[in-house]
């Protein structure tokens, strides 16, 4: 089979799975809404309201979060040329955590969206501080960016932890940032849309990220403004992951494992992979969320947990199978 054809087939299969899961996600829930009624426009006003207020926002946020965070991970790993870097390595997550803490202590009366906006501002400010630091240091090699990111995130996180420890707010932070879609309602998730334009920029820059991933001198030799591309990448990654982490909570695996699984099979061309990564991420989040809603129906298991369990099982299986095959070939 030719490469293009296989590519198209894979994309079509992922898209079909995503569509099927989306329908399932819309019609699973305590309130009974039948797809047949929806098709024949026979929904009662209450059913329409339920769709508009919870079901559709939930579907949209799951798809956006899955796609965005996986792409952010892909970019981060490409730029730093390190497969073990996650989108939150640049200190974004730590800055967002600090923002949540400040919002909880200083603005207890603010609405959820306001608190989220405060935390988002912190996350962006943290990333800009990080980018400034990266600009000022001399590059030794690509591992230096995540190392500085880890250190920077660690400093911010130490401040957060010491304050939260004093106010006994550590558990509140854990709760806020645990991945969960059940609180997604109209009016509480719109922060996620902030990520969309960044993802579009990421698509435009895909080829530049691929070249930047070949290293500073190689990229410069090909006429690329290396620093500029790295900075654009960092800002995209930060904005996207802050938006997701603050509205949905932290979703394990997405930023780290999804891009790794895709590049393991398909190599390091960002443009060639970006759609696969986005679709696989979205499919994965949606599947875990829907499963969490069915498994102890009418109650729910938060997506952070189903993802942790299902994701580790699935990815381990993929890896071990591939590894066994590789060992036979070798």
């Amino acid at each position, binding site marked *: 089979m030719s490469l293009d054809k296989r590519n198209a087939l894979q994309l079509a299969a992922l898209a079909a799975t995503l569509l099927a899961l989306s329908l399932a996600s819309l019609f699973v829930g305590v309130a009974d809404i039948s797809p047949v009624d929806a098709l024949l426009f026979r929904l009662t006003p209450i059913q329409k309201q339920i769709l508009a207020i919870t079901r559709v926002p939930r579907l949209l946020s799951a798809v956006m979060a899955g796609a965005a965070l996986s792409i952010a991970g892909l970019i981060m790993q490409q730029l730093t040329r390190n497969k073990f870097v996650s989108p939150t390595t640049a200190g974004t997550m730590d800055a967002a955590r600090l923002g949540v803490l400040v919002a909880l202590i200083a603005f207890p009366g603010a609405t959820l969206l306001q608190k989220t906006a405060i935390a988002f501002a912190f996350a962006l400010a943290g990333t800009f501080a990080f980018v400034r630091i990266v600009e000022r240091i001399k590059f030794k090699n690509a591992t230096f960016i995540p190392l*500085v990111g880890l250190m920077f995130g660690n*400093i911010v996180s130490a401040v957060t932890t*010491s304050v939260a420890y004093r106010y006994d707010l550590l558990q509140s932070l854990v709760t806020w940032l645990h991945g969960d879609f059940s609180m997604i309602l109209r009016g509480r998730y719109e922060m996620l849309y902030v990520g969309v334009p960044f993802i579009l920029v990421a698509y435009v820059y895909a080829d530049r990220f691929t070249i930047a991933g070949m290293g500073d001198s190689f990229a410069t030799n090909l006429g690329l403004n290396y620093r500029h591309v790295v900075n654009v990448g960092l800002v995209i990654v930060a904005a996207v992951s802050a938006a997701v982490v603050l509205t949905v909570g932290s979703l394990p695996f997405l930023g*780290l*494992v999804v891009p790794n699984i895709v590049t393991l099979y398909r190599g390091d061309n960002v443009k060639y992979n970006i759609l696969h990564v986005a679709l696989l991420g979205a499919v994965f989040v949606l599947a875990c969320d829907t499963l969490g809603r069915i498994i102890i129906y009418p109650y729910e298991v*938060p997506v*952070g947990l189903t993802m*942790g369990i299902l994701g580790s099982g699935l990815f381990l299986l993929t890896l071990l199978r*591939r590894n066994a095959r590789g060992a036979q070939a*070798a």
Partner: protein
Amino acid sequence: MSGLVSRALVKEAVVGPRAGVRARLAAVALAALIFLALYLVLNIRGDWQFAVTRRLLVVGAVVLAAAATGGATVIFQTLTHNHILTPSVIGLDSLYVLMQTLVVFALGAASPAWTDATVHFLLSTALLVLFAGLLYQRLFRSERHNVYVVLLIGLIAGTFFQSVASFLQMILDPNEFLIAQSRLFATFNNVRAPALALAAGALALAALYAAPYFKYLDVLGLGREHAINLGVDYNRVVRRLWLAVILLTAVTTALVGPITFLGLLAVSLARQLLRDYRHATLLLGTFLVGTALLGGGLLLVERLLVFAVPVSVIVNLAGGVYFLYLVLKESQA
């Protein structure tokens, strides 16, 4: 870049590399000694003998933890050719955190698995070594082991432990969470003599086992092909070093809690400070920097801040700021 290199070369020709490195090593060692000595004698009210005996245990745990995590991290980074990884990437820290949460959640904070330091240490060690052993077996089952895949497996397992732990912490009774919280950070004050002695024995064995292979580390840093070409029995050496790393990390984590970030901090600081990439220097430097960081952190937390924050938080804060300072200073020169 070239300016930096030539300046370094000139400096090396004039002063000699070893003299500078030795002086800096001595300075760090002195700092570590002063911190630990101050920690031992400051603010003793009441019985000297009791207080000093008690504090010697803490100092012992600090030295042990700094040596074990520092050594494990240096070797691990050389084996994986990755300067931002620590052995915690294979999920040992997360497994420890999950275990603590699970014990409080299922057995309650009054069970011996939580209150008895020796039982707690043995239980944690058994669990961590079991997990690490499975991973190790996986790594070396076939001759052509793929480190990348094994790290990925460890990473996935770690994420799994973490998400379960975070879920349990979310639904934990707030009072019990406060109890569990005390062990979610590295702590040296829970260390008791029997556990310390057991850990010291286990760590010494692991270090002795790996010690004959330390001399190959510089060559291993060149990469697999170069190492084999230079006559190193690659698979055998790497296998032993891996086992040592895993044992060192598992035992230290069981003794004092999730401390592995300290390793990364100490190695990175030692690299920045010493500018010497020979492993003999790096291992010693990492150990000394780690001891100084922990000693200074303990001194600050217990004598000045009166336990307002966990010691690892102070260590991470001070160490991280110092690291960024070194990196930025170097760029301005």
